[in-house]
């Protein structure tokens, strides 16, 4: 493989991991969403680059979905929802930034060690894409577990899903990639509409343990 094409693919996938890290320490919702939009733009570039070097034209559709839907439509929609719900001033630090970043570093190390070890014979580009993709997935999960606000959980899930798209496009010649990215877009649209319609603000946890018992229907 040409050194430059490899480097560019590597650069784009690496930046996605970096942007995932940036999400970890955002404590304002607007900032988080903006970072996510950046994530989606870089994903679109990365997928388009894969489409170019693999000569797989259908991947351009996936790239276009990432660019239009995830980088523009969803962030704009979420901005509006946040204003409507009146939670734009909320600051959330469920877990401190320091521990979260450390956990993130641990997860990235884990995925690198795991994926690079089990795929010694695979195509080097696919192999590193896979390791980066797993890092992004795990960081997305971390965003989801460290946040309490429903909107930021959705953002975490979307960044997780970006990792999946990266993995799927890195696997050369994989069928159904476009279909899966469309299916995921529909899923996300559902989630976002759900958040808005039902005004889901917070997840199930609350400082008030009584509320929790009530919710579980277990109060005597």
């Amino acid at each position, binding site marked *: 493989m040409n050194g430059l094409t490899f480097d560019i693919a590597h650069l784009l996938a690496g930046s996605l991991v970096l942007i995932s890290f940036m999400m970890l320490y955002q404590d304002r919702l607007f900032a988080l969403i903006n970072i996510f939009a950046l994530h989606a733009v870089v994903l679109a570039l990365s997928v388009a680059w894969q489409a170019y070097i693999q000569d797989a034209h259908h991947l351009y559709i996936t790239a276009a979905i990432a660019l239009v839907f995830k980088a523009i439509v969803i962030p704009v929609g979420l901005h509006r929802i946040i204003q409507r719900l009146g939670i734009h001033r909320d600051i959330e630090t469920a877990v401190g930034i320091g521990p979260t970043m450390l956990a993130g570093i641990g997860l990235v190390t884990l995925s690198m060690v795991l994926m690079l070890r089990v795929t010694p014979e695979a195509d080097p580009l696919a192999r590193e894409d896979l390791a980066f993709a797993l890092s992004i997935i795990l960081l997305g999960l971390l965003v989801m577990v460290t946040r309490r606000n429903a909107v930021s959980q959705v953002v975490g899930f979307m960044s997780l899903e970006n990792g999946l798209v990266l993995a799927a496009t890195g696997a050369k010649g994989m069928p159904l990639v476009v279909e899966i990215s469309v299916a995921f877009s529909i899923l996300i649209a559902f*989630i976002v509409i759900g958040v808005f319609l039902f005004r889901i603000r917070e997840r199930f946890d609350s400082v008030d343990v009584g509320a929790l018992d009530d919710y579980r229907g277990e109060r005597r």
Partner: protein
Amino acid sequence: MSGFSLDAVAAILFIPAAAAILAALPNYRMTAAVNVAASLLTLLAALSLFVTDRPAPGQYLLIDDLNIVFIVLNTFVGFTTSVFSASYIAHELETGRLTAPNLRFYHAMYQIMMFGMNLAFVSNNIGLMWVAVELATLSTVLMVGIYRTHEALEAAWKYFILGSVGIALALFGTILVYMAAQPVVGEGTNAMVWSVLIENAAHFDPALLSVAFIFLLLGYGTKVGLAPLHAWLPDAHAEGPTPISAVLSGLLLNVALYAVLRFKLLLAASPQAIGPGPLMVTMGLTSLIFAAFMLYRRRDIKRLFAYSSIEHMGIIVFAFGMGGPLANFAGLLHMVMHSLTKSAIFFAVGHIAQVKGTQKISEIRGLTESHPGLGWALVIGVVAIAGLPPLGIFMSEFLVVSSTFARHPWLAIPLVFGLLIAFGALLLRLTGLAFGEPRGGMAPVEASYVPIYSHLALVFAAGIYLPAPLVAWFQHVAGILG
């Protein structure tokens, strides 16, 4: 007549899909009837799979001895639940908890769910299977949230988020399987076709396949309701309409289990990969013991039986994890018995909650006196699910325990421990619910007894005598499962 059999597969998929559209009809009574009729037709189409020749496995669809069992069970419980659902939903409409447009939506979703589950069973393509499982999950999420109460929305949201994470992990696992297959099978659709994968699995990179299985087990395991990932299950069961609790426990958990089994077979065909058995045994035992203890603290009747489902899925996964002809046979039998019994229990519980107007265990007393039909159905169901003879679950649990004793005696200790703990909890709750001074609503009930008692009769019959052809079939399938 291979053409006819393909038609049967097409019918299994096409009837629910068409019915979903039909269910949008303006008259709600019609939609309930459409739901029942479509479920019956799908069941008949599924039964015809036994007698017709099978099509050769294609790139997308596959019928083999393993999935016929699942399809027939799925469509049967789907049909009986639709009968139960018709009477349950009519009551919900009278009390005003649901409106007519809700019902059209509900029935359409019910059929979409059946479509998704059937598609997952017949798919020969691991990508298609993933899409089908996602579809089935999404439609149940929408049904869980149908009451629009705060609790129902929270439950649906929790189910949605955890289910999405599970489905994401499963997709990553699926991509890894493709990556493992691609150097051997070549690029393109073939590297996702299960029947091609299983032939070539011995040449796949074992390390990659092992990692893939871990993701798949975690991902689909979330939907099976295995212990560390079960958090969505009790809420979704408790807050949704009861017919949905019945199909969640009786069917949707099986769909995810089926996916895990398919990938377990792949792994078993690759000698150097990690053995899937120990992982499944560990997760199964953890779920069993955890759920058994959780049974004691339940105050909500539907939540109680939801935890019981986690317990039984733990037993089933444990049995399949043990492997070998006897344990697999026991696992299959237990899965069938659990589906039948648990859905019968939920049918009874649905009517009970409607007459009593509550799901709180402490407010339901003396059911055998106030509503003998429902009360005794609940008694028989709980006795069955607790694993007492002579009912079917006793037999399958006995087989699981005895095969464990024969091969890994030290594993039998935690298994029996978990079973006894759960047994105690269920009987403790049952005495309060079924006997004593009646409490709560006393209104007579227009229950649909046919689905409840037909399930219980099957479970009873299976406990007394299993027909030889069925035993032979299950033994054959158990042999396939390795």
